[in-house]
């Protein structure tokens, strides 16, 4: 069981969280062409090693988080608010 150190709640079991998705994706503007949205939604790397993911503290503070994690060892390097303003405020 992965444990995540939520910046708002402290270290909690992953059962409290819901996995979001690939945190490295930048979604295009809503009026961007279909091709740009296709790439953002469907083209995913499946890297071995360090990745950025989004997680949602569903049964906690309900904040979306950016988690840096190793897909091999499950080592978690950092957990920050996904909201850039909140992340900056906590730095």
């Amino acid at each position, binding site marked *: *069981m*992965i*444990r995540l150190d939520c910046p708002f709640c402290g270290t909690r*079991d992953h059962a409290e969280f*819901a996995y*979001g998705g690939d945190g490295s994706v930048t*979604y*295009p*503007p*809503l*009026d*961007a*062409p*279909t091709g*740009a*949205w*296709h790439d*953002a*939604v*469907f083209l995913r790397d499946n890297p071995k090693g360090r990745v950025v993911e*989004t997680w*949602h503290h*569903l049964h906690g503070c*309900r*904040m*979306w988080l950016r988690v840096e994690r190793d897909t091999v*060892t*499950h*080592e*978690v390097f950092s957990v920050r*608010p*996904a*909201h*850039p*303003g*909140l992340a900056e405020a906590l730095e």
Partner: protein
Amino acid sequence: MTARRLDAGGRIDRTRRIRFAWDGAEARGFAGDTLASALMASGHPVVGRSFKYHRPRGIMSAGVEESGAIVTVGEGARAEPNVKATAQELYEGLSARGQNAWPNVRWDAGSVSGLFGRFFAAGFYYKTFMGLPPFEWGRGTGLWMRYEALIRRAAGMGAASREPDPDAYETAHARCDVLVVGSGPAGLRAALTAAEAGRDVILVEQDFELGGDLLSDPSEWAARDEMVAALEKAGVRVMLRTTAFGLYDHGVAGLVERVTDHLAAPDPALPRQRVWTVRAGATVVATGALERTVAFAGNDRPGVMTAQAAATYATRFGVLPGERVVIAANNDSAYGPAAVLAGAGAEVTVLDLRDAPPDAPDGVTVRAGRTVAEAHGARGVTRVRMARPVRDGFAGAGWLDCDLLCMAAGWTPVVNLGSHRDVRATWDAGLATFLPGPSREALHFAGAAAGVWDRARCAASGEAAAKRAMGEAAPAPEPGGWERPIAPLYEVRVPDVTRKSFVDPQHDVTASDVRLAHREGFVSVEHLKRYTTLGMATDQGKVGNVIGLALMAEALGREIPAVGTTRFRPPYTPVSIGALAGRSVGTHFRPTRRTPLHDWNLAHGATMTDAGLWRRPWFYPRAGEGIAEAYVREAATVREAVGICDVSSLGKIAVQGPDAAEFLNRVYVNGFLKLPIGKARYGVMLRDDGFVMDDGTTWRLGEEEFLMTTTTTGAGRVMVWLEELLQTRWPELRVHVASTTDAWASVSVAGPRSRETIEACLADGSDISDAALPFMGVARMRLANGTEGWIARISFSGERAFELFVPALDGPGMMDLLWPEAERRGGCLYGLEALGTLRIEKGHVTGAELDGRVTLDDAGLGRMASTKKAFVGDALRRRSELERDDRPRLVGLFPKDRSATFKAGSILHAPGEAEGMGAGWVTAVTHSPALGHWIGLGFISGGAAAWDGRPAVADDPTRGGSCEVEVVSPHMFDADGGRMRG
């Protein structure tokens, strides 16, 4: 084997006799016995039958690695199969029986399969029954399925009860600084070291006594008792009868505590077992080592066991397993048990493969350069054939009479828990064993689990591991500890012996099976495992793996490390499903959500049903009515007079902030920027990929304040989605969202007489006339009892209808006002079934239609999409495949024969074309009182226009039933919506 209880000694309490039943007959033991030691003392040499060949099996070990004494314990619903008698604590009234045998384990009709053993080699069943059957009609899987049923009956382990589990289980949580697994010399020392340094320590022991290996040596008992007392003083939390079955990420361990499995009359308030999730700062693995055996002919005979097990029975349980004992040894660890057995009165001969064995203990004969090639005796060993090493193998070297053959062929550290954490086992050729490799995590091996064989250094190893667990530098003692090196030995074959020699006795995998796997190319360790099932029994290879690897290495002409080892997965020993489920069973499997009107609904005759997690009124039967009569009456009453329906389970989300309108405008396909205050609008939202996510009405309560409603089942998903968008994609939007579902009690009052019903309940000043509250209007209201809330003129039923939202606790009071007024006007309460009828008649979509595969156009809602703004999903809904005209589109369905019916879930197709996926499917069916016949909603290729004048068939091949249908517009009743606006 002629075992007997010794007159004295052991850790059993001879003053406490315990009666138990074995195969229906009464037997006796003492408190402190295991089922195995009691069976042994009662003279039961054969206690099991093997998996495939039904060979008689006796007790082979004294622990969880047991492959012979596998029994069923308990009766009826409490019958638990595949219990290791060697790890089952004895209790008064315990009832156990042999398994995989008929009529019993001593006389088993199935044992004839042993006579045909050469036909039952690895892969036999698949090759014979799945490959090429003798007859053409036998090809394919049908015949194999029939064979398989027979094979499964012939082979296997015990049978689980088919009755519901009557016991309670629970799950629990704990945390600690240091978790120590195993309480042998290393584990005890590790726990004490950490606890005396002020750490919070949990010590886990699967046995019912602390001490591990120390329990088998009476000279250590006093020191052991002192250690245990010191542990208590130091505040160590000791968990007996608890197995650490798995280690997981970030220091999490899974434990199963057997709370009452050893009790004759357990407190009914206690759970049978408890699964613990422990979060540990560091873990010390002091799980010891398991003694190995050797592959040779008849090595599974009753009366063959490990040397350490024999010593344990003699010292801990006071049972001498045999009078004339042969010990086949290749290392120094045989001599302790030899001395113990001789001291207890047995005649002991050690066959030491090595040319220069240690000095013989008193009363022990040692024969150097000898080992064992064959064991004879069907129901217990009677004699063994000796062997001596020659060039390229072994040669027979005469016979020895005996009644117990002990194997001391080296030790395998229990590295399983490390394997769960990606610790690789590395082969140490000098010690002829796998040792745990390094760990990246706070995981430290100690004692025999780290390959330290001698007891004094095991304690030192435990102390060092505890220090490392506390972050101090403490080098681990070197593995090993014998004076003379081990002479590796995995198999003994002499030329003229062809009888079976077992590698994995629990799954009846033989040495020749391993060689067959090699000949057929299954040489990788993972293929070897799957082809022969080596290591796939309930012991997961604890006994057989190393021998199997050694034989494969030999066949390949390589070293053992080149073959590798399979990775162990949790659980270390079997865990019952019930324990893992804990209390999450029955109605506690998931939360139950009740609306604020739940009790009111029940008091007014509601029959309830499940809608997601919610309990909702299904229908309100009157005298003599079933569901079919009730829902048709309710739906008709709504269209003719008025009906009241509890809609509190609808998702409700407050959306507030300066940018709330802009936010909704991006989320919904239709425009929300210009929605006036006091108006509601039906909206549909898409996922990024362009498919419909959810729908509902959103009400503008103020300039910066909206109340969004969602479908009952979509509420959670939509809330998560809005939070994701606001926090990850559009952080610049000044919007907050909050779930308010549970804050409101809401009802729909629908029907031509709905307005007058509500008006009769309002306080003076609340105006819901058509002018004040037109269709899609939203306003504050005040009920006659003073309750304030919101009222919206929205309609799901297609009738003039209002939704009334009041604070949750005011819900029943509102119903007490509304219901008499509705009843006076010929109205009714209506439930989910009638709600479904009304919306199907109108062609309003719900979860049955919006199943995640449906686009706006598929649902007939394409015209809602704004062309003046971009919204979520807009780009990807324009993919060419999603814009095809022949995609299945929402349609209404009438049976051609208006008296006929059809079923939701049916496949739609043109007559005579019942192939493949068909042309569509049926999502909902109801009897329509408005139309006077059965109707349905569904999706069909091209929609109603493509099927104009063409019949379709609703086919239900799995449940049966076929019905010709007409494909019509989904708006089957009051298509222009005059009734709801009126």
